[in-house]
Structures are given as C-alpha cells and as structure tokens.
C-alpha cells in the first residue's frame, strides 16, 4: 500500500472510528442479553433430563461450539432468508445488522447454556430440599434460591464469553454491517494506509475490553459478597 508509515494517522483515525462504536456495543448488548435468557432455557432440558429436547439441545450446542462464528454468520445470512422464504416472507432486504444479532445471540446462548448448566448443578441440593421443606414450589426455589447462586458461579465465565463475543463482533462487517471495522475498511481504501488504521482499531477494541473487564470485576465482587474469604480462594 501507498506511502510510508504515518503515526499521526493512528490518532486522527480514532475520532473517525468512534462514532461507529455504538453499533458494536448494540450488537454485544442485544446478543448477550437475549443470549442469557435463551441460554437458561437451553440449559433446562439437560439439567432436568427432558427427553428429545435434551438430544436437540445437545446437537445444537455441539454444532455451535464446533463451527467458526464466521461460518455461522454466513449460514444465517444466506440460509435464514431461504428458510423464511419458504413461508412466503421475504427477508432478503432486511438490515444485515439483524442477521448479526441473530447469529451472535444463537452462538452466545449455546455457550451460556453450558455455563449455566454447570453453575446450576453446582448449587448444593440441600438448599433446594430446604426450600421445598418450607413449602416453595419448584419455580420459587429456582428463581429465589438456585438461580441467584448459580449466576454468581456462572458470572466470570459469562464475562469471558461476552468479551470474546465483543471481539467477534468485528466480523459483522463481512456481511455488510457498517460498524467500526466497516468504517475502518473504508478509511483504509481512502487513505491507502492499512497498518495505521488497524492499530487505531486495535487501540479502541483494547480500551473497550479493558473497560468491560473492569466493570465485570466490579460486578463479580458484588456477587461474591456473601462468601467468606477462604471460599473465594477455592
């Protein structure tokens, strides 16, 4: 590419990229938020041994874990309109942003489901028995006793998955979403300086990740408030 390395371009590009950061954050917030709810649902069949559904979610989770997110993105982007088209609904012109949300939600949900499954089974069953003995229904026991504790156990892994997902959102531009990456590509074309722009992007992603990590640590600290110190070090 043209020209010698121009450090000033790194700092000049950042303000041009930042206005697109909210797209990244939106993709992340929606796909993690909906993914968490979906993840809880997907964890249920395996936890409570619901036949058939259990097999379906097992295949689903294993498929998502075993395939690259970029391919999942293309499968949803090209595949979903075909499937929905069978129903006579045309979504080929839908904003690619939504395909990204769908893909990342499905992908996060699979990871979250496995995280929740482990976390929920880690909560001592004695507390469930205590809740039942007091007269709780299974649902009351789940949302008042088991889930809050499982969420604490799950949280560090949820945070890690979310941060990976944040970085993965940089693939969204490959189906035409104008996020920071997309904007970066146009800047590269306009300036003919690739390395500087990629450095700017790296700086922005890195800072955002650091901020998220900080926030997650703070939440984790809050969630752990009822543990004594030696349990924490376990």
């Amino acid at each position, binding site marked *: 590419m043209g020209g010698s390395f121009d450090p000033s371009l790194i700092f000049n590009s950042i303000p041009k990229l930042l206005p697109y950061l909210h797209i990244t954050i939106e993709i992340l917030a929606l796909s993690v938020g909906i993914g968490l709810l979906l993840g809880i649902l997907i964890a249920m069949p395996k936890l409570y041994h619901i036949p058939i559904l259990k097999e379906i979610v097992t295949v689903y989770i294993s498929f998502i874990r075993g395939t690259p997110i970029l391919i999942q993105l293309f499968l949803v982007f090209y595949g979903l309109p075909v499937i929905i088209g069978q129903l006579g609904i045309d979504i080929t012109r839908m904003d690619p942003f939504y395909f990204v949300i769908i893909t990342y939600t499905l992908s996060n949900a699979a990871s979250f489901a496995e995280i929740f499954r482990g976390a929920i089974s880690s909560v001592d069953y004695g507390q469930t028995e205590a809740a039942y003995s*007091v007269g709780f229904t299974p649902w009351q026991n789940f949302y008042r006793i088991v889930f809050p*504790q499982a969420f604490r156990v799950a949280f560090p892994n949820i945070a890690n998955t979310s941060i990976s997902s944040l970085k993965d959102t940089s693939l969204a531009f490959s189906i035409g979403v104008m996020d920071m990456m997309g904007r970066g590509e146009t800047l590269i074309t306009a300036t003919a300086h690739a390395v500087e722009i990629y450095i700017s992007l790296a700086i922005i992603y890195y800072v955002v990740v650091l901020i998220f990590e900080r926030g997650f640590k703070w939440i984790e600290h809050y969630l752990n408030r009822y543990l004594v110190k030696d349990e924490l070090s376990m």
Partner: protein
Amino acid sequence: MIQLTNIHKSFGKTDVLKGIDLQVNKGDIISILGPSGSGKTTLLRCINFLEKANEGSIEIDDIALDVRHATKKEIVALRKKTAMVFQSYNLFQHKTVLQNITEGLVVVQKKNEKEANEIAKTMLAKIGLEHKADAFPSSLSGGQQQRVGIARALALNPEVILFDEPTSALDPELVGEVLDVIRKIAKEGITMIIVTHEMNFARDISNRVVFMDGGVVVEEGTPRQIFNNPKNDRTKQFLRRLVPEFTYEI
C-alpha cells in the same frame, strides 16, 4: 395430630421402610433411635415428601393423603404444615441470617416484609443470635448455623418440626448450644420428631421414644420404658452398644 399408616419405601430393590405406623399427638416430642441404615432419615423425609413413599397414608392436621395419589398441590400444602431441620443445616447461602428466616414467611405464607422481619427478630432473640441478623451463613460457626436452621423452621409455626440428627455434623464443643436451643423450644409445646444419636438428650427431652431397626418400628414407649426396661432384644443390644454404662431393670 399426625398419623402415619403403613408407610413403605424402597430404593430400587432395597426395602428401606417396611410398613411404618406412627401416631404423634399435639405437643409430643418423639425421639427416633436406631442403628445406621435403619431408615430413620428416610422416614422423616417421607413425612414431608422429600422422598415419595411407595405406599401408605399420611395425615397431618386437616390434610389426609394416600401417598400414591398425592398431587403437587397437596404435597405443597402438607409441606406448609411441617418444617425440617437438616443435619447439614442447608441454609440459603446468598441470604442473610434474617432473610433465611423471612424467606418462607414472605414467599410461602405471604406475610408482608415488616411482619416477617418482626417474627424473624423474635426467633433470633430466642436462639440468641440477634447480633448476627445481617451476617451471611458462611461467616457463622456450625452451631450458629444450625440454630438459624432451627429458627427458620420455628418461624413458620408448623404443626411439627422434623429434626434429622441436628447435631451430628457439629464439633463436639458446639453440640451443647444447639441442644439447649431445642430444649428451650420444646418447652413451648411445639410438636417435634427428632432423629438423634444423643441418648441422654433423647431421654431428657422426649415424652416418647421410637426404636427403629431394619425399616420397622421395633419398639416404642416412654423414655423410661425404652431406656430402663426395653422389651425387645434388638433394642437392648443397641442400647448396650451405645450407652456402655447402660443397665436395665430385669
């Protein structure tokens, strides 16, 4: 009043309870003794359906159930009449001591928060842990946790409190404080069924002692009858092993 009739329970092919009958009157304090594996825990757990018995009927107050046909609703109704104190305390780890006690009052008994807090504070005073109201269970000693477990059960004002070896997970020096709390609430006329290996405690506190072995009630009677004048050979053998200085009248 509580009436258990012909309770049978098996796990796979092992018959653990082979037709238990037990009548408990209001205010009774019943100790259940028996060797390990005789089915004491299983019997307690069948009473509140933590374990579903295979056969038999359970009557508590105005509820009468054939265990085979009990619906979920009936089971919850029955559980509301009973409370349980567990060997391993089973406190809600993410709730404070006070919240452990109010939880059932608010969620199950639909009391408002203020009323629930007041009841909980009265209970905490009873077990001598007012100063720990806002502590989390993990910061308490085993003895303190079990006292909270007792307060949690007591707060529900149940027809009966079921104790499953409430002191056997405790360090010896903590057993006393828990037994003292149980003695204290026993004086209030609350019906209790206590599975225990603390023979002196059982003798002091109960008005009836039930001796179980091999899934059946072998013998029952007043503490005096059971401890001083047991009729059955298995009871004699059990007591001789457990209470070395044990001698009975001939």
